[in-house]
Every structure is written in C-alpha cells, then in structure tokens.
C-alpha cells in the first residue's frame, strides 16, 4: 500500500488490516514517523517525538499479532498524547518552561489504558501553556500551526493534537478539555473531538487547569475512531476522586442504530446568533442533513444562557490561579506573558464572584436538564468563526467589529463545560477560504452514546471528514 494511502487510513480501517496481518504495525508507525519528520517542521504540532520507543513498541505489537495475540482495535495504532498527560519516562511539559524537565515516574490512567490496548505512542503534542488559552501560540515550544493553512491558528489548548490528527501525523490523539480545548481545535482542524461528561474519563495524573471542569478525551478523523479510543479510556478509576461509577455502554455496537426519531434542540437567539456567515450556513445545512435522516429539530428557549462567558472566565481564572499560586510567586518570569497575566488576574476575584459563578452553573444545568425532557441533544456551532491568523488576539465575527479572542472563542464551548455535559464537535463544512467549520452537539450527562450516533449518522451522509489538508 502506498504511503499516502496508509496515512489516510482511519483507525477502524487500519485496525482491520492489522488484525488480519495485511498491514504491519512497524510499517504503519514508520510511515507516521516519516510524515512527522516532513510536515512537523511547518506545523510544530509535537513537543516530543518518541521515535525509538514507538518503533520498539510497534515491533512488539507485530510479534504479538503474528503470534495470534490481538489486543483490539488500538493494537499497533500510532497515537499522540497531549503534553499535559503523564507518560512514564517521557518528558511531560504541559507546554510550560516550569515543567520542561519533568519526566513522570507514572503514567496517567488514560495513558496506561491506551498502552494496555496496544496503542503505539508516537509523541507528545504541543499545547497552549498549561492549557490556559485557546491559540497554542506557545512561547516556549513555538507556535503550532493549522494544516489547512499554516498562517492560521490550530486553536487550543489541544492545538497540537488537533493539527497532528488533521495532518495525518497520527491516527488519533488525546486532548484535554476544560472550556473547549478539545472541541475548539477539532473544529478548526476539521476533525472530530468529544468532551466527555465529567467523571466519565479519569483525570488521574493529568496536569490540571480548572478542577471542576477538566476532562480528557480523544480526537480523531471520524466519530467511529473517537468511539474506538473512548471505549478504551472511559470508565471508573479509583485513583481519581471525581471518577464516576457509571457503567460504560458498548458505544461501537450502538453506533449504527438509526437516528430517526431523535430530537435535537436549537437554542433560540443563541445557537445561530452572532456567528460568521459561513459558520451559520454550514451548521444550518448540517441541521437539514440531520432532518433528512429523520431527526426532528426544535427551537428551545434557554433564558439563563446569557452570563455563561463571565461564569467561565471567573471559574477558569480562579481555579488555575489556585493551582499555580506558589509558582506565580517563585517562578513568575518562567510563564509566557499571556498565561502569567491571566494567572495574576485570577488572584483578583472575590470569593463571592467565584461562588456566584458556581451557582450559575447550577441554574444552567437545571435548565439544560429540563430541556432534555423535550430533546435528546442540543446543537450549536463549535466556534462562531473559522481559524484566525496565528498570533491574533482579536477576531471579527460580524459587522467588522473586533472582539477579544478569549471571550469570543468561549461563546459556545463554555456552556457544556459549565453544565457538566458531554459535547461532540464534528466537521460540517468549509468557509470560502477552505477553513473547516465544526458543529457542537451537546448531550445529557453520561449520554455520550447519543452524540456518537448523531455524529456517525451525519458522517455517513456527508464527506467533509474525508477531505485532507494539502500539506
């Protein structure tokens, strides 16, 4: 098989070939490593490439498969891991200078689960410093770039994971999502990403950003590939105090279930308001596609939704500043300017601001739970705009009005984060400049399965996810 064909394989397709011996994990891994060597000079999606370790693991995987020991769909699959997730013996910087020499003695639970499933870890991906930001314009490890146009940003904070998956320098990746850090880069890089319900996937041995909102999850080119990874990493972990003892369904088996009769809510004056025209058009077209599959679309009012950005900024300011309190006093000069400023600001809020923001979360959650008596999921764009130029701190959404990037980027993804709900980002088209647009689908607590079904059905009816950047 030609190299290009190998790189375009989905996890599902590669897994089938690997299982029957038609593809070697060594060949697949080597192809991916060579692709990294060629395109990552431009993209800077990786902080650390684990070439030798990956080759060794791939050789072991090949021996096992040849001997008849196939561990499942991730066995021999090249996977990347965001650099705030512990990898035993491999530097884990969280995109920071402060942790630049940190080599964990343990894996994160999610890393352990991927390794046990036979995944080949090819590297640690670039990210916004300490995950506190949405651009992956990293001052210590370099600016990460979008494979659809390297002059544009890959969003963040899991920008390296998003760019790596889209650029075919891995078949899937792990990211982390606090206020949107998986869904934002999934959207602007034209791939799929899921933020799970808090407690569904272990956060053990993951460098925190905001404890009450942090999650870990997969990013891949198809919903099916996300499901294959999610099925491995989801489930109770006694090492994580926030881990939920909720059974994990057989997502893959449910994936093909018809979506006819499912109900999707569009939030009045919110879901399609204040977005770039191309984004609104793409999401409206995606809703029509879902309707053509038998999904019912209903408009629902949600009066409490205004206020979400302030609540998110308050919580996402206070909690990181608590975690970073000591370093901000002893190693302030080692932070990048934007993160240092945000951490300083986080020390300036009152306790009442923080607690009112947490009370707001209760209101928002109740309103969503009430909405879920009428619909099975809600739809919004993932971002109100497509990828902006690297380094931009302002963005124009409509009426030639410049807005602050940090607030604008949170417009849609902050809501499920605050309400503790799962949310999937799926590619639904491109703007006139060829930049991807993503749609966010928000689900009931612990009902990631319905999001996967909707996303999979949508991908079955469209081909956006099959397009590759011309890099």
């Amino acid at each position, binding site marked *: 098989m030609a190299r290009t064909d190998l790189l375009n394989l989905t996890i599902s397709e590669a897994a089938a070939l690997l299982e029957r011996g038609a593809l070697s994990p060594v060949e697949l891994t080597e192809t991916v490593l060579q692709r990294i060597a060629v395109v990552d000079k431009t993209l800077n999606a990786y902080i650390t490439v684990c070439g030798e370790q990956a080759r060794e693991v791939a050789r072991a995987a090949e021996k096992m498969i040849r001997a008849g020991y196939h561990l499942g769909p991730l066995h021999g699959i090249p996977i990347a891991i965001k650099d705030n997730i512990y990898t035993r013996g491999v530097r884990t910087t969280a995109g920071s200078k402060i942790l630049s020499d940190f080599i964990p003695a343990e894996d994160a639970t999610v890393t352990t689960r991927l390794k046990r499933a036979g995944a080949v870890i090819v590297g640690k991906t670039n990210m916004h410093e300490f995950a506190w930001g949405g651009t992956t314009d990293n001052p210590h490890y370099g600016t990460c770039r979008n494979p659809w146009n390297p002059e544009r940003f890959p969003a963040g904070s899991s920008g390296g994971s998003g760019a790596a998956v889209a650029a075919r320098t891995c078949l899937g990746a792990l990211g982390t999502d606090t206020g949107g850090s998986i869904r934002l880069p999934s959207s602007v890089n034209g791939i799929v990403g899921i933020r799970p319900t808090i407690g569904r996937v272990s956060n053990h041995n993951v460098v925190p950003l905001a404890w009450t909102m942090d999650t870990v999850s997969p990013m891949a080119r198809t919903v099916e590939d996300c499901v294959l990874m999610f099925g491995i990493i989801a489930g109770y972990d006694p090492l994580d105090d926030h881990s939920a003892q909720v059974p994990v369904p057989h997502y893959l088996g449910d994936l093909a279930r018809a979506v006819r009769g499912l109900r999707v809510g569009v939030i009045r004056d919110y879901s399609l308001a204040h977005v770039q025209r191309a984004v609104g058009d793409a999401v409206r077209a995606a809703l029509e596609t879902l309707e053509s599959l038998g999904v019912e679309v209903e408009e629902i009012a949600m009066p409490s939704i205004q206020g979400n950005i302030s609540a998110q900024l308050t919580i996402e300011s206070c909690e990181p500043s608590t975690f970073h309190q000591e370093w901000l*006093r002893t190693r302030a000069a080692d932070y990048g300017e934007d993160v240092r*400023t945000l951490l*300083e600001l986080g020390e300036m809020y009152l306790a009442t601001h923080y607690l009112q*923001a*947490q009370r707001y979360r*209760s209101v928002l959650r109740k309103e969503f739970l009430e909405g879920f008596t009428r619909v099975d999921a809600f739809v919004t764009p993932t971002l109100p705009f497509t990828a902006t130029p690297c380094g931009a701190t302002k963005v124009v959404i409509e009426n030639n009005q410049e807005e602050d990037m940090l607030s604008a980027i949170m417009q849609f993804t902050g809501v499920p984060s605050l309400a503790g709900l799962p949310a999937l980002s799926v590619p639904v088209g491109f703007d006139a400049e060829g930049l991807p647009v993503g749609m966010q689908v928000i689900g009931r607590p612990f009902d990631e399965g319905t999001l996967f079904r909707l996303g999979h059905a949508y991908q079955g009816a469209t081909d956006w996810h099959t397009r590759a950047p011309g890099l």
Partner: protein
Amino acid sequence: MAPQEPVAIESIDRLCTLANLPLPAERRARLVPMLSGLVAAANELSRKMAHAGYRAIVPIVRFPER
C-alpha cells in the same frame, strides 16, 4: 445599583497586598483595564444570581453531582 466604576490601581494594590502577591508596579497597571472588564461582568452575574427565584440555588463545585 450604580453602574460599575472602573477598577482603580489602588484596588489592585490592596488585592496584591491581601494575596501577598508581589507584582511590580508596571504589571499592576497593566491589569487595570482587563480587571475592570472582568469584574464588571462578574458583578453583573452576581446581580443576576441575587434574583429571588435563585435563592435556593447552591453552587456545584463537584462533578458528577452526588
């Protein structure tokens, strides 16, 4: 309630003292416009949460809820 006054540099000085955060003067000054916007938004949210209909609402600081 009166409109939000911009945050004064003296307020940031006091907050730094309270937090035992030794920020140089130029960094304190840089925080003024940003903090003014953030605090105004946070106060607006606080006013919203003071609504009588929300009196029974308690904060969620732990997910999943138990």
